[in-house]
């Protein structure tokens, strides 16, 4: 879908991407503590970035959601900086080689990501919450300590354990 947007500037494909991702991008931003109006505005910026940067999408590196995640993450960082100083420019995008990935490497990536989703869903509820908060909270350690009623000093090792558990689950998969 993203490749179609990149290659033929296909607005129908873009509409489908918008319909799927925009509400999830907004949910991501709201999760990070942004108010509804700001999240709405930044979601529109992110969706515009998806149109503009579609040519950078590399299906051998990850699926569409992975790519969108990285774009929202970067937009959120730039947004926080500009809120402090409006004159700042965004960080330049990395210059990426324009190579067409092979069908084989795309298939491998799709399989790798399917395993990852499986591993994520085999985590216990508490460890899954730790992973979620690590990714989407502005102050992950405080958020984890509050959500799980843990002393702040133990959070770091709990995060490390949850991430290690994920790795083990991944390695156990066929």
């Amino acid at each position, binding site marked *: 879908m993203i490749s179609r947007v990149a290659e033929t500037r296909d*607005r129908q494909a*873009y*509409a489908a991407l*918008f319909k799927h991702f*925009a*509400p*999830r*991008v*907004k*949910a*991501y931003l*709201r*999760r990070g503590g942004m108010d509804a109006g700001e999240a*709405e505005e930044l*979601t*529109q910026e992110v*969706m*515009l970035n998806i*149109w*503009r940067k579609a040519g950078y999408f590399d299906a051998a*590196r*990850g*699926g*569409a*959601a*992975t*790519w*969108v*995640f*990285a774009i929202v*993450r*970067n937009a*959120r*960082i*730039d947004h926080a*900086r500009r809120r402090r100083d409006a004159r*700042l*420019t*965004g*960080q*330049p995008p*990395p*210059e990426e080689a324009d190579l067409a990935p092979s069908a084989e490497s795309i298939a491998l990536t799709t399989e*790798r*990501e399917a395993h*990852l*989703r499986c591993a*994520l869903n085999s985590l216990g509820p508490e460890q899954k919450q730790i*992973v*979620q908060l*690590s*990714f*989407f909270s502005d102050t*992950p350690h405080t958020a984890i300590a509050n959500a799980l009623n843990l002393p702040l000093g133990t959070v*770091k090792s709990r*995060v*490390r354990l949850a*991430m290690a558990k*994920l790795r083990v689950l*991944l390695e156990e998969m066929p």
Partner: protein
Amino acid sequence: MISHHPSPETLLAHATGALAAGHAVVVAAHLQGCAQCEAAQTRMESLGGALLEEFAPEPLADEAFAQVLARLDDPAPAPTASLRQARLALPSGVSLPAVLRGAEIGRWLWIGLGLRYSRVRLPWAPEQNVMLLKVAGGRKVLHHSHGGLELTQVIWGGFHDITGQYGPGDIGEADETTEHQPVADPEGCICLASLEGGLRLPWFTRLFGG
């Protein structure tokens, strides 16, 4: 052969966007030369994507799609104005990490016996304390204290301390709990470093003739 990588916490913070901009540049320089950490980073971004897919969608305003459609043909924001990049004298065959392409790079300044410093200014985060350091062979640290996280990516040459030998591509991670006395290799060392806090120099520079 790279033997020193960022800690899991630092890699996770980088992947989730929680790492300070200065540290993020040093980690990005490491990732460009380290397939193992680059793969770990990709894995974490995939995890971010999987979590994003699981969110309950939050509807946008009715007119949101039309508003974005109307802007699709707007010109993208202009690229940053020309950057001041000093042409640093580097050993032959050595080039700066590609991630510094968008940064301003100052001239080598002599700041002490056998020590040169070049300020790296990130236009998107100018308050960050990032620098290139060039240390002559054999310099060592007598005493130091850290304030917050310090990252040091070796670009050329190397150093060693009780945690081991650091060569090109290795990253050193230190904080206030770290106690070590690094010594530059005989040929010297060029590093990219980031520090938290104001303009001060890292442990690496608190050197004494050795």
